[in-house]
Each structure stands twice: as C-alpha cells, then as structure tokens.
C-alpha cells in the first residue's frame, strides 16, 4: 500500500455515507465550457514526493498520484471501482493463468516521442525485479518465473551482518519479448489475479532514456506515457504538469496545465481552497469535519466519497495470551462499531461488516460475523476462553489522529468484558512499525489496509496467509493457506473469488484481526471547476476535469 506522508493527520479521515461504488462526481454534472477548459489551468494540493519519481520505487501517496497521472499502464481501474479494463493492452490472453500473452496497442508514445514497445515493459520489470537495484516495489514481481534468481533474500534478516548474495540472474526468465507489440509472461504458479495487478504503478513501462541515466536523475524529470507530462519540479514548492498532446489512449486531458502545490499543513491548503487560490484538495483537514463545517464552507463543492481502505485492530497471535480464538471473537463482538463511527467520526466512516473492503471486486458485504455487536455472546465466549489475565493494551501511532477511536474501542472492551483495556500511543509511526515488524507487540495494535489493486485477493494473501507480506500477527491456518492457494491459482477470477469466499469463512471463525471501519474521503474543489471525478482510490481523475 501507499502511505500518506503529510506531517499532520497522516491518515485520511474517511467518510462513507453509502457503500456504493466510489468515484462520485460533483453536484454539477452538466460539464464545463469547452473553450474555457481548453487552455485552462488548475492548482491542486499535494505533498513532496519522497523519492525521485520512478514507478517501481514509489510507495507513498505524494509521489504515487503524480506517477498515476504521468504514466498509463496495461490495464486501468475504472473510477466506479469495478473490474479492471485494458488500457495500453490490446489483449491479455491466457489459458491456464500461468502463461499470459500480452499484446499492446501500437504506436503510442512516451513524452519524449519514443514509441512504447513490448520491450519497454520487459526492461522496466527486469530492472525492478533485480535485487541490487533496491526497488521498493520489487515484491510485486515475485509471481513471475525466475524472481528467486534475480532477487535474493537477506540470509540473516535486515539487522544481521550478512548481506544478500549477488543474484544469479539479471533478468526474469519468465519474461519474453516476441516482437515490438507482443510479449509473454510466464508465472511461477498460476495466478488468476495477475492481469488485475498490471494497473498498479510498479508495472508501468519505462522509456530507453531511463536506462541511459541513473534512476535518481530520471526521477527528477520523469518521462512517462500518460495523459499529462511533467514540466518542472521544484522541491517542496510545486510540480508543474501539462497536457501531453500526443496521448492516444482513452481520454485526453480537457484542461491544459496543472500545478501541484506542495503544502506541509492541510489547514493552510484548506484556507487557500476557501479563498479561491486552490482548485482541489483531496482530503480536507480533520478540524473542518467536526459539525460538518466543511459542508457549510464548501456547499455544492464538497465531495464525499468512499475509498477502498479499512481500519483494523490486529492481534499478535505469536503471543500466547491471544492464541485462543474464543477470546479473539469475544473482544471483536464487544466492540460497538456503529457507536465509534457515529460519535468519533461523525458518521464520516462506516462500521466494518466484512473482511475485505466492500468496494473491492470479489468482496462480500456482511461476511464478518465477528463484526456484530453482541456483548452477551462476548461475555459467554470470554468465560469459555477462561477470561483474560492482566492488562490489554491497544497501541497506535500517536503522530496521526488515531487516539480518539482507539480509546473509544478500549473503553468498550473494558465496559463490556471487564477486561482492563487501555489505549497506548507510540510516539511515531516509525517506532510503532519497528515494534510490529520485529514481532515485539505484547497487546493489540492498530493496523490499516488500503488495497494496491482492486481484487479480494489483495485483502487475503498479504494479511491472512502464512508468511504474507503484512501478516504481522503471524496468523496461520493451514486450511486458509490451502484455500487461498487454490483460489490464487484458479483459472478464472470468478472461481478465484468463490474459493476466497470459502477462505474468508474460515478466517471469520478464527478472527485473526478485528476490522473496525471502512474509510472515506472528503474532498473539495473551487468554483472554477465545473466537472470533476475521483478515481477508485480517491485521487483526482485528471482527465475528467472541466472548467
């Protein structure tokens, strides 16, 4: 997932009034004035990208959204959250979900005028998958055959003295260029969801210019193939983007120039929005949500939308005290999620009632029976589990706004189960994550998950399968592992989703984590913008803007 790096309120406070598809448009759907749009320019808010803009090396939202605009991938995720559609790909064919024949559209251009060819993908993916290049998104290529030869693990963990050994191969053996417009991908095991993943930024193509220079140099003035190109980037001040006139995939930009102004404080950006100096703010500040002030301030220009991200509290299952599933279920049932979302989030977030976020294809609303509020059953289960000894801590990182809701949850557990539950703030996200990553948690802890690509697979494999990349509590159920493996290898997405639904039923019995809420997003735009849409993850759809 990408993580937000704004200093204040690092996590978006969400609003989700109706759990319908996201990507809603503003009050005025008439569209804008074509001539005003044609040479129009807008200013939108952003944060300083942490790293040079290289798709496979960007894991935070500040750089991530620029990458999403500057590049176009093989597939795209529709704004309404539905199944992915081909964009640069002419076709993606497979008979066994293991070998994929990918044909790309001919004669599309990079911003420097060179043509996007099959080779542009293969070379980019090989670069990202080669361990010593240190790409942050390298793990996305682990499905492809030969990944183990290009990417070696650190033999004694990141803190040990030994370094990973030199990889055996420089290129993924599973990638084969057939001609300029065709290439073939062989996976190490059948993976039905692979085509869905291809819309994630790690899989973007790179022009030859990338390989002629260093990633750091390239990333300061990246050359992509998307509807908009980067003109200049002044650190901590602004990024200037302009329409790429040779763009031939899907929609062209209707306006011409976009300036991404970098703010360190979201209240400053909000005040600029109200004063008409800023045209779009993706997330209005927490302070403006109380009493729905932002809706009064913005009127019809307020946009409330849902985003596929959930707030979760996880158990450290490696700790003996949390190994009884009745206890875990008791705790989950003792939490009144409706009350938390109403009182703490003013109804702007929705109480969680399913394991995967319901906006995700393949997810089933309401499949979390442990998410009900049932204090009587909770008490009974706690007794059956033999009670809970000692203090139950619920940790959160105190550098973002999590204190209120974590304290509310702790209070509910205390009241309903008579457990000595207390919410504990850890000063920074870095310290908090360091403890989680080294499996040193002695109590429950806040977790969050925002999907990387729209499929239920992304909500199961990383979180609940043994050895999953974010299975920090070390939850392990061989039956879940087996079902998830079958599901991942299913020949079609429908069958995969069916198998995942079975796995979720088992997860629901084990309660390895406690889903609390579904996130939302509150955005605002200026009077200048007449039409606007947000993408499936709540970013501005830059091609939709009309003035």
């Amino acid at each position, binding site marked *: 997932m990408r993580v937000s790096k704004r200093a204040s309120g690092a996590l978006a406070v969400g609003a989700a009034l109706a759990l319908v598809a996201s990507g809603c448009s503003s009050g005025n759907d008439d569209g804008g004035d074509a001539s005003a749009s044609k040479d129009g320019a807008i200013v939108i808010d952003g944060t300083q990208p942490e790293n040079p803009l290289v798709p496979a090396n960007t894991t935070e939202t500040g750089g991530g959204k620029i990458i999403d605009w500057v590049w176009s991938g093989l597939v795209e995720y529709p704004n309404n959250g539905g199944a992915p559609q081909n964009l640069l790909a002419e076709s993606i064919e497979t008979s066994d979900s293991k070998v994929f024949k990918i044909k790309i559209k001919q004669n599309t251009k990079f911003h420097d005028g060179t043509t996007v060819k099959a080779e542009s993908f293969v070379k980019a993916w090989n670069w990202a998958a080669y361990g010593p290049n240190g790409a942050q998104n390298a793990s996305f290529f682990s499905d492809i055959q030969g990944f183990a030869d290009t990417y070696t693990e650190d033999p004694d963990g990141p803190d040990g003295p030994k370094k990973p050994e030199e990889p055996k191969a420089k290129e993924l053996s599973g990638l084969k260029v057939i001609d300029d417009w065709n290439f073939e991908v062989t996976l190490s095991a059948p993976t039905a969801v692979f085509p869905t993943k291809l819309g994630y930024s790690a899989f973007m193509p790179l022009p030859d210019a990338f390989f002629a220079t260093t990633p750091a140099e390239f990333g300061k003035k990246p050359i992509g193939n998307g509807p908009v190109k980067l003109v200049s980037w002044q650190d901590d001040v602004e990024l200037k983007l302009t329409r790429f006139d040779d763009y031939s995939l899907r929609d062209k930009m209707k306006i011409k120039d976009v300036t991404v102004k970098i703010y360190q404080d979201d209240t400053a950006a909000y005040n600029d929005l109200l004063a008409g100096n800023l045209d779009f703010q993706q997330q209005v500040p927490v302070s403006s949500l109380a009493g729905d002030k932002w809706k009064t301030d913005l009127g019809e220009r307020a946009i409330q939308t849902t985003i596929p991200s959930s707030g979760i509290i996880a158990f450290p299952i490696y700790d003996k005290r949390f190994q009884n599933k009745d206890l875990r279920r008791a705790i989950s049932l003792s939490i009144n999620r409706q009350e938390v979302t109403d009182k703490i989030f003013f109804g702007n977030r929705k109480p969680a009632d399913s394991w995967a976020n319901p906006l995700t294809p393949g997810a089933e609303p309401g499949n979390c029976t442990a998410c009900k509020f049932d204090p009587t059953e909770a008490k009974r289960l706690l007794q059956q589990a033999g009670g809970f000894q000692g203090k139950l801590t619920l940790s959160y990182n105190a550098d973002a706004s999590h204190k209120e809701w974590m304290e509310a949850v702790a209070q509910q557990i205390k009241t309903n189960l008579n457990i000595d539950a207390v919410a504990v703030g850890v000063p920074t996200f*870095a310290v908090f994550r360091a403890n989680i990553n080294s499996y040193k948690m002695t109590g429950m802890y806040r977790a969050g998950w925002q999907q990387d690509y729209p499929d239920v697979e992304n909500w199961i494999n990383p979180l609940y399968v043994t050895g999953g990349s974010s299975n920090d509590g070390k939850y392990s159920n061989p039956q879940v592992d087996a079902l998830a493996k079958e599901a991942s290898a299913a020949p079609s997405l429908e069958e995969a989703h069916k198998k995942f639904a079975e796995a979720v039923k088992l997860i629901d019995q084990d309660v390895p984590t406690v889903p609390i809420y579904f996130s939302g997003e509150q955005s605002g735009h200026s009077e200048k913008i007449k039409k606007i849409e947000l993408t499936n993850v709540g970013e501005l759809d830059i091609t939709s803007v009309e003035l």
Partner: protein
Amino acid sequence: MGRYLVRRLLQLVPVFIGTTFLIYWLVWSVPGDPFAGKCGDRGCPPNYRAMMTEKYHLDDSIWVQYASYMKNLFQGDFGITFGGREISDIIATSYPNTLKLAVVALAIEAIIGLGAGVLTGLRRNGFLDNLVLVSSLFLIALPVFVIGFVLQWFLGVKWGIITPTVSNEMRFSELIVPGFVLGSASSAYIARVARTSIAENRRADYVRTAIAKGLPMRRVVGVHLLRNSLIPVVTLLGTDLGALMGGAIITEGIFGINGIGRQVLRAIVTKESATVVGIVVVLVLVYLIMNLLVDLLYAALDPRIRYE
C-alpha cells in the same frame, strides 16, 4: 578590538564541534529504525534496506558515522537525503526563506516594541501605558498558532485582504502578516524591556542635565535617552533572530512557507541525521555570529564599553 574578535572567533570552533556532535548523537539515539515507517504497513523490502544501509553507512558506529560526516562537511559536502536530494540544495533554498521571514519579523517587533516602549516609558501610568501593558500581556499569553490561524482566517479567507498562504516568490507584502505573527510575542517583551529601561534612564543625571541645558525634548529623547536605553533591547533583538529562525516552524506551517522548520521536522521524523545536523549547524553559526555582533554593538552604543 582585533584581539577580542580573534578570541571570540576561535571560541566558535569548540562550540561548533560540540553542538554538531551533540545533535548528531541525539538524532542517532532517537528510537526506531529509519526504514520501519518508510514503506508503509508493508515494510521495506530487504534489498532496499541493504542498499540504503550500505549507501548511508547506517551499520557503522556513531563515531565512524560522525567522523565521516565531519570529513565530508569540511570538504563542503553536506551529504544527501534518503530520497537522494543534495542537503546543500535544501539548505540553499530553505534558509533564505526563513531568514527573510525572520528579518521581517524582527523589523516589525523592533518598530512595534520600541515605539510602544518609548511612548509608555515617557508617560508612565497613563492610559496608553495601561493599554500597552494589557495588550502585551495578551500577546504573550496567546500561542503563536492561535494568532496565526485567527489572522489567516479573518484576513485571508473571510475578508480576502491577504492570500492565506505565501507564494513561492516570498514578496515582502505577503510576509507582513506572517512576520507579525512570528514576532508578536517578542515585540511584547521588547516593549516592556524598553519601557523599563527608558523609565529608569529618564531620571538619570545626564538626562536632567540635558533638559536643564535647554535641549529640545526630541533631541534629549532621540539621542541621549534612547541610545543609552537601547542596550538591553539590542541584546534581546540580537539573540531573537536565531530564536525566530529556529522557532518559525509553526508560522511556516500555517502560511505554507518553504523554510527550514519543515525540513528539520521531516528529517527528525525520518531519522536523517545528516539533514538535521546540516541545517542546525548553519543555525548554530547564525546564533554565534549574532551574539558576537550584539557584543560589538554594545561598544558602539556605550562609549564606556571597550574591548581588549
């Protein structure tokens, strides 16, 4: 005078080394590892960590790290951030902004503080004196961010007199309100110090002599009284420049100014020792030089003070 200057300059060396090491050590001992929060809930891939650890010598001891940092620093190399930016670039772009803001704040606090101090010092216990007393207490009691947000909201959003945030050009007219916010508390202190100082010297022999000689009041106050009463005020102003630069972080945040405050905050959170030390080193130099300047100014203001 010359010897004094050389001695003072030589004193800078141990202070410089001591502060840089302390800061380096403090950032180094902040708990948590720099990559724990960097890649979100998923964590950074091991190869990325290995590459960065090697590049930034993160597995060396603090002594080795500090020594190599200082060696590079003396060759004019401030190092690079984890994101690959030259720290000297960051310093070069963010320092002038903070300095501009601090100088505007200093000018505003000098004008307001001195003006109010002189007026009230000459007419003690009058209506004006009480008014200044109450309003300076009010300014001191209000936290900077309250003044900042209130002024931004009314002047910027409600009435549209200013733009809520400062543009990248940092025009002087845009800096008046942020400068006032930043210097507000200090101007209240200056007003009170100036008032006391003026009131005391008002009764001094040389003032009475000057009045008795029949000098016009303007000359008595403007030349004789003010010059002698300025010493404590100058001390306050001089040391305040450093404090304003280091303390501008809140004001910079509210008004969206790209200054050193945000850079230091970001670097501390991500454990980028090199960035923190680089910025603070320059700040330490500003402090030291300002203090030296203040000491030298004493001699200019009071002929009885001479340095050997």
